[in-house]
Structures are given as C-alpha cells and as structure tokens.
C-alpha cells in the first residue's frame, strides 16, 4: 500500500537533503513570498512547499505525472481536502495509545500497539469508503492507481484476518518459546511459537511416547525467580511485539505520506487560486529533456511582485542559446526579469503551473544564483574574495545542464579585472553546457562577449525609450555603454536629462 501521488514509483521524502545553496536561492529569488502564499498560514504546507520547490524534478515524465495529478486536484478539491482530514486523524493515535513511547518492556509495547492498530483499522475503513464512493472524477494515473490499490487490498476478509491476530496476542493459553544455546550456554534466539490447537496436542500426546519433558515451578515467595520468569516472557514476546509495532508504524507512515503528498497539492491549489483571483495568466509548462536548448515563453512575470500589485511581463522565443547577457538601464527591470526566469523553472520542475501564458523549455539538473551582495559593500577589500568564494562553492556542485543566474557578479573589483574573471568563468561554463543568464554593468565584459560572436549567446537589454523613460521590459538588444544611472540621478535631482542621451557603440 503505497501513496505514490507525487512520484509514480517512490514516496516523497520531506527530509530529503536540499541543495546546499537553497537558502541563497530563497533569498535571491524571494521564494518566501511564494511559500507564504502556498501555505496560507499553515506551517506544514509551507514546509512541504519549500522542500518541493527546492528539490527539483529532473525527469520530464515525473513533471508530467505531477502536472496531471495537480489538474485532478484543481477539479476535485473538496474530496482531496476530505482525504487530507482523514490523514490528519492518524496523528491522534500516538496521543491516545502511547504508541511509540520508549519502553523497555515488550509486553507494554505489545499492548499499546494493539490499541493503536484498532484505531488505524477504523481510519482505513473510512478511507476505503471514500475511495469507493468518489473516484470517478479522477483521471491522472497518480490518483487512479491510488484508488485501485485501496479497493484491491483493503477487503472485508483482510480486516477479519487482522482482528483474529489481535485476539490471539492476548495469550490466554500461555506462551510457547523456543531457544538455543549461545556463547557461555546462555539461552539465545528466543522465538515465540504458534501453539498447535487443542485436538492436535491430544493426538501427539497419545502417539509420541518419547515426548520427554521436565517441569518445575517457581515458588510464590521467590521474587527473583518471578523477575527471571517475566524476563523470559519478555524475551519471547519481543519479536512479536516488534512485528506488530513495526506494522503500526508502517501504517502510520502510510497516513503520514498521504498527508504530506496531499499537502503539496493543497498548497499548489492555494497558489493557483490566489494568482487567478489577481487576474494573472497561468499555464502548465511543456518540459523538454535537459540536453535540448529551447526557451519559449509569453507573458512571463514574477509572481512575488504579481501578488503585490502590477508587474511587467516579458516574452522570448529562442533556440540553441546557452548564455544570455542582460545589460541596460538601472532599475530597468533586469533583476525582476532574472527572478521571473528562476522562479518559472523551479515551479516547472516542481510539477507546478508557471506564471506565464505559455512556457516551454528544456529542464535543468541544478539551479544556482550568484548575486552581488549589497549588504557588505562597506568592506570592499574582502568583497571580491567573498564573491569568488561563493563562485567556488557553485563550481564545487555544478554539473552540465545546470542553470546559473548572475546578477552584477564580479563588479567589486575594477571593470577590467572583473570582466576578465567573468569572461573566463562564463566561457568555461558554456563549454561545459551550463546555461547562464548574466545581468551586468561591466561593459567591457558584455562587449567582449558580443565581439566573440558566438551563436549560442543572446543579448538582452532593459528597454529605455527615447525620452529616457524605462518600460521595465527586457528586449533583444546589444550591450550599450552607459547604464543610465545618470538618468536616475537627474530625475531625483530634478535636472533635464535630454543631453545625457544613450550612447550605443
């Protein structure tokens, strides 16, 4: 009985090790806003959303599997919430039965696991009824198979078998335990044995004369003897107490997995509803294998801004590009654009819809961001060192077909040196099939890359109109020398900007 609602062949692991740069991704892409929207104040939903978004799927089929399941959830949200409620009930078992509390005594453990098992069986019966009544509205293989498993495996006969075991485990007729001689002739391998029923025992007594047996009795007043005897019983029961406790845990894990996997879909629905209500376009992306290089999107926007107001949307349609160099006006929407790209990929590879009216692209194996850190501007001397240290950490983990988003990287030294460093890094990564978006002010670097004339490099600029106004749109365009900081300066200081016109080389 597996849940398998998030992967077709494995459980979702909430405690999976996240990429070492997760916190950096959260910071640079402002993922917290996204998590909050998915969570709707539920900490567990938030935790699940975070793990799912950061542990990206790396197979096209897996992405499709989740997309289909999510579509089912969007259509049947009430039933999904009902199943989620049942899964939550299983968390009461520990409190009600003391199951799972550490005990040195198998007899106590056996007792609490019998009680736990009785409650869990009732929950399973409920879940089964729900599955029998409502499964018609589901079409994804994830949910269809899940319901089939419940119907096939949780039959009436099965419930009867379980209940008969629970009765036998009360041991009204004494315990039969087998053992062998271990080192030092101490008893070992104590195993609880099933007792043959009454009739057979009579028969064997009559026919086997050589049934040699020795019996002794422990005196009522012999306290140490009584202790030794109960120790023997505990040893005998040990394996069966373990077996039943493990079974209870398995069953609780089933409910735990069910809760976790449903939580993801509930969180996804939360985000979907929020963005729909804000009137933003959403679509399920088309994911392509990671060795292809295709990037096509329309009306792509940054959800973290969209949830707070108006945003600019961008479109792009290119093939066989590995490096995107983005230059142009300060505060011209470059960072937002970079973020919308990063978030779209994380969402796509979590199996979610994306924040665009259309999106299709190859997927990536890993994601990295390398942003200039504004906060430690003060200590300029150690700054380049710090930037390179972070780059070094990225290189330690990078593989081909990864995506790196650079934002003003290596600009903490002179432009000449920074450009040289950036160029070497970018060229090497490009050679290793790493895809990059690089927002930069370093004209020398951008120009160098332009002059290389490599067909897999694509140049984008933050659009600026004739009159100096910024549209916050990112368009195809070759690197230009000034970065419009002067414009902003002039605007703030109320001077005419007409004679600071754009100088394109």
């Amino acid at each position, binding site marked *: 009985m597996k849940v398998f609602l998030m992967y077709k062949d494995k459980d979702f692991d909430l405690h999976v090790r996240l990429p070492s740069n997760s916190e950096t991704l959260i910071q640079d892409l402002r993922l917290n806003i996204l998590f909050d929207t998915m969570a709707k104040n539920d900490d567990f939903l938030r935790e699940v959303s975070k793990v799912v978004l950061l542990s990206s799927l790396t197979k096209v089929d897996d992405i499709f599997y989740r997309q289909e399941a999510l579509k089912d959830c969007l259509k049947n949200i009430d039933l999904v919430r009902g199943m989620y409620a049942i899964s939550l009930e299983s968390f009461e078992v520990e409190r009600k039965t003391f199951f799972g509390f550490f005990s040195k005594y198998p007899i106590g453990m056996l007792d609490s696991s019998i009680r736990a098992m009785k409650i869990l069986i009732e929950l399973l019966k409920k879940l089964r009824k729900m599955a029998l009544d409502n499964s018609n509205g589901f079409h994804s293989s994830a949910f269809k198979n899940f319901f089939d498993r419940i119907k096939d495996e949780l039959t009436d006969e099965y419930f009867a078998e379980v209940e008969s075991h629970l009765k036998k485990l009360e041991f009204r007729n*004494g315990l039969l335990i087998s053992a062998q001689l271990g080192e030092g002739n101490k008893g070992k391998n104590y195993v609880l044995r099933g007792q043959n029923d009454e009739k057979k025992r009579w028969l064997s007594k009559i026919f086997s004369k050589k049934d040699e047996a020795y019996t002794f009795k422990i005196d009522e007043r012999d306290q140490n003897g009584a202790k030794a*005897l109960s120790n023997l019983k505990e040893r*005998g029961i040990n394996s069966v107490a373990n077996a039943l406790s493990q079974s209870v845990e398995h069953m609780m*894990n*089933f409910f735990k997995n069910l809760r976790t996997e449903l939580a993801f879909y509930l969180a996804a629905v939360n985000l979907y509803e929020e963005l729909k209500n804000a009137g933003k376009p959403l679509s399920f992306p088309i994911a392509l294998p990671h060795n292809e290089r295709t990037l096509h999107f329309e009306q792509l926007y940054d959800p973290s801004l969209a949830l707070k107001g108006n945003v600019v949307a961008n479109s792009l349609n290119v093939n066989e590009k590995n490096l995107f160099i983005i230059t142009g006006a300060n505060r011209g929407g470059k960072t937002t654009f970079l973020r919308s790209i990063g978030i779209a990929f994380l969402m796509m590879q979590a199996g979610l819809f994306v924040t665009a009216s259309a999106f299709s692209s190859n997927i990536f194996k890993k994601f990295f961001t390398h942003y200039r850190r504004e906060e430690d501007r003060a200590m300029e001397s150690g700054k380049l*060192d710090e930037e390179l240290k972070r780059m070094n950490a990225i290189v330690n983990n990078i593989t081909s077909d990864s995506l790196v988003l650079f934002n003003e990287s290596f600009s903490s030294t002179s432009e000449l040196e920074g450009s040289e460093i950036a160029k070497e890094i970018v060229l090497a990564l490009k050679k290793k099939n790493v895809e990059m978006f690089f927002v930069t002010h370093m004209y020398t670097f951008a120009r160098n890359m332009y002059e290389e004339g490599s067909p897999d490099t694509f140049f984008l600029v933050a659009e600026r109109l004739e009159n100096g106004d910024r549209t916050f749109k990112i368009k195809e365009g070759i690197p230009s020398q000034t970065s419009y900081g002067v414009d902003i300066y002039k605007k703030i200081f109320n001077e005419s900007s007409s004679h600071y016109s754009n100088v394109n080389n």
Partner: protein
Amino acid sequence: MFYSLLFKDKKDKGRKKLEDVEFFRDLNLDQMITSLTSLKKEHNLNEFFYVFPSSVEETKYRQDISRDLENEEVFHSVREFSMKMQRARKYQNYANKLVYKYQKERWFVDSARVYVEAVNTLKMDLSSLKINSEGFKEFKRYLNEYVNSEAFKDLASQVSSILDELSAIEYTIFIKENTIKVQKYKGEKDYAEEVLKTFERFKQTNVKDYNVEFDEFMEMNHVEAKILDLVAKLYSHEFSELDLFYVKYASYMDKTIVRFEREVQFYISYLEYVKPLKESGLKFCYPEFTTSKQVYASEAFDVVLAKKMQNEGSTIICNDFHLNKKERILVVTGPNQGGKTTFARMIGQIHYLGRMGYPVPAKKARLMFFDKILSHFEREERAENLRGKLEDDLIRIKKILDAATSSSIVLMNEIFSSTTLDDALFLTKKVVERIIESDSLAVLVTFLYEISSMNDKVVSMVSTVSQENPEIRTYKIVRMPSNGLSYAISLARKYGLTYDQLMERIDV
C-alpha cells in the same frame, strides 16, 4: 627460527632504552605515542617507543614488515587475527570468573574456538597473500609448523565437535503462570512471522526496530541455570563431552603466537593512526638512509598537527627541504604564525619515525641515520626572572652542544627570544658556530634575519605570506619567495576559477 617482529636478531647488540627524550615533548611525539598506545592498553606498547633499532639493517627489517602490512589484505587479516585473540582472552576471563558449571565450561570452549579460528584463519590468509619481508616469512614458517602439529590439530577437532553438538540443540519452554516446562523443539511455527505477513502490504520505507535490547550479563540467574540443567538432562551425551574438554585443555595458547600478536600492534597502531591522513591525499613513504648530510624530503608535514587539523576539518600544508653538500643548518625566519615551528618539528618527526621503521609523512625522503635527536624549544612557562631564564636556557643549550656529534640532529626553536636583540644575535651566532664545529645537522628557527645569511653552511628558509594579502599565511616554508600575478586574477586562481582550472574541475 622466528624470534621477533621488532628486532632482527635475538642477540642484544647494545640496544638500550633512550634516556634523553626531551624531544618527544618538543616534537609532540608524546601526543602521538599516547594516541597509539591508549587504544591498545592490554598490549602495553609504550616501551617499544623508547628503543631504537640498532642498525640500518634492523630499521629496514621493520620497514619491510610495515610494507607488508600496508598491503590492505595483509593488514586486514592480521587485525582480524588480533581482534580474535583479544576476544579469546576475554572469554577465558569469563570462564575463570563465573559460577555455574555448564556456563564456565562453555565459555572455556568458546575461548578455545575463537583462538583456533584466529590461528587457522591467519595461516590460511598468509599462505595466499604475497608477503616479502623476512620477518613475516619467518613467522609464516613458524605458524605453518604450529598449525600442523598434533597438539593443535587435536585441540581444533575437539572444539568443533563439541560446539557442533551444542549448537544443534533447540528446546522449548512453555510458560503458564508459575510453571515452566522444558522440552525438545518440535517444529512449531514462528508467530511473529505470521503477524508480519498479514501486515506486509503496508510496508513503507524504513521503520524503527522495536526489539528491546536486553541487558546481557555474563552471569545467569537461577531460573536460567535451572533450565540449562534440564536441557543438559535432555541432551546428556553432549554435556558429558563438555565436561571432559574442560579438564584436558587447561592451557592451550602458544607463547610465540601471543608475542607476535603483541608486537604487530606496534605497526598496526601507527598505520591506523595515519590511515585517514593517507585517505585525505597526504603522502607517506619509506625513507632511504644516508650517513652524509645530504638529506631531503618532499611534501613533508607534521603528522601530529595534520591529525589535529583533520579532526577540525582542515588540511595541513606540506613543505619540502633539502641540504646540498656543504649545507648543515636550516635557518627558518619569517612572519609569526607562519608554520616555522611546525617545520622544525616536522624534520625531527620524520627522522624519529623513519628510524623506528615507520613510513614517514612525506612523498619522498632521504634521511640521516642519526645517533641522537637534541631539541630545545621555547616554552610558554614563565621564569622567575629573565636572567634566570636565560641562564637555564644556556645550561640546556650547552648540554645539547656538548652531546652533539656529527651524526646528531639539533633542533632549536626561538632560543634567546626574551633577551636583548644584541645579546640574542651574539649568542645565536655562537651557537651556530658550535653546531658547525660539531658538524651536526640542525634546524634553527629564529627571528634574527641576519643569521640566515651567515655563511655557506647555512640555508635560509622563509615562511611566506600571500602576495595579495599579507594577512594570509600560506604555511609554505620556501628557500626563495615567489611572486607574480595581479591581485584579482591570482585571487581567482586561488579559488580555482580560471578557465583552465574550471575545465579541469567540472565533469560533464
């Protein structure tokens, strides 16, 4: 005839215990020895570290044995052997201490079983493994004879027949209220398996093991003893054999085997100590020896510091050194905290370790076969007054200089640092002259730059700092400083971020 894994000849050719072991502390060798011996307390290894092999041949005898042990299969099998021997001794102790008859007797057979297994396995392993050292070959010969002896064969066959019979016994106890019934086992089914089968369909990934660990005492309680007595009644033949064995084989361990097992710890403890360092990529080698002073080592390091750094998650920096024909004294200067003291320790350590027959922490080395290591390291301890301290220092230094011969290694670290500059310069020059007179090999760590160019017997070594950022120590001690690249690019190089480095680093 096999005698010892540590000494080539039985005859003691003036082998004697080291007296002046001041250098143990200065070189932090005392810490290493404590690490090596503390895990092998029952073998009492300490005395081995105070006796030098008497000749280059004897050191090589050890090197060869150590090389054999560096073969992982040999090492593994010897270590397994040793662990079994320790277990056999432990079981013998139980047999001596415990009370119930069938329990005592059984521990004794169990002890013999472990011993027989240990010896047999080692013999089998050694016969198929490639060994090259004289020491191991001699031992192997001895071991083969022993295993083929009547006494051992008899022991082995008795042990196995008794234990086969005992382990075939399976009985049941039926408990109802206060009554216990003991019978032979008649094939009743395992009930836990049936329960598991029922719930198998719910199997998710990992679950806890809910089996309770019972406290296992060597002792038995009287109920267990009573059950054992009844089992003995059910199986009377098996238990009478056990009685017989206990009387007949009262002392069965062979003395030479026991000695081998103790001495091999000398190698095992060190090889285990350096293993994590090797795995982290640091190099070890067996040095060659010279009577001249043309010594060298490449990629050498302070093994004790390397251990400490590894525990803290960092890696030590390796250094090279060499002395040409006329050169005698390495004078180490440069900024503080730059690894100068470590460098001096390292040279002392590799000489000591090399002499003991151990692989030394270096990629390649030629060392002097010295007679003494004489060291004087500045200590933290506070003297009553400076004058008194200088006096004490000079007394110790004079003792060293008087004892030094042309085969000695002299290590001096920051001597005279608490006196005036003029005095320090004067005194240090005198010390250098005396060392040159005695023709010893010396390392002198000092803050006096003038000394490093005193004459052609002196080699200047300098601890270096990063070209870009003088705050950063490189821990490289070099004959000549190097420089080159501009700040930013060399910083990029430092982090492995140049084009060429990246092409190397990233796998496709």
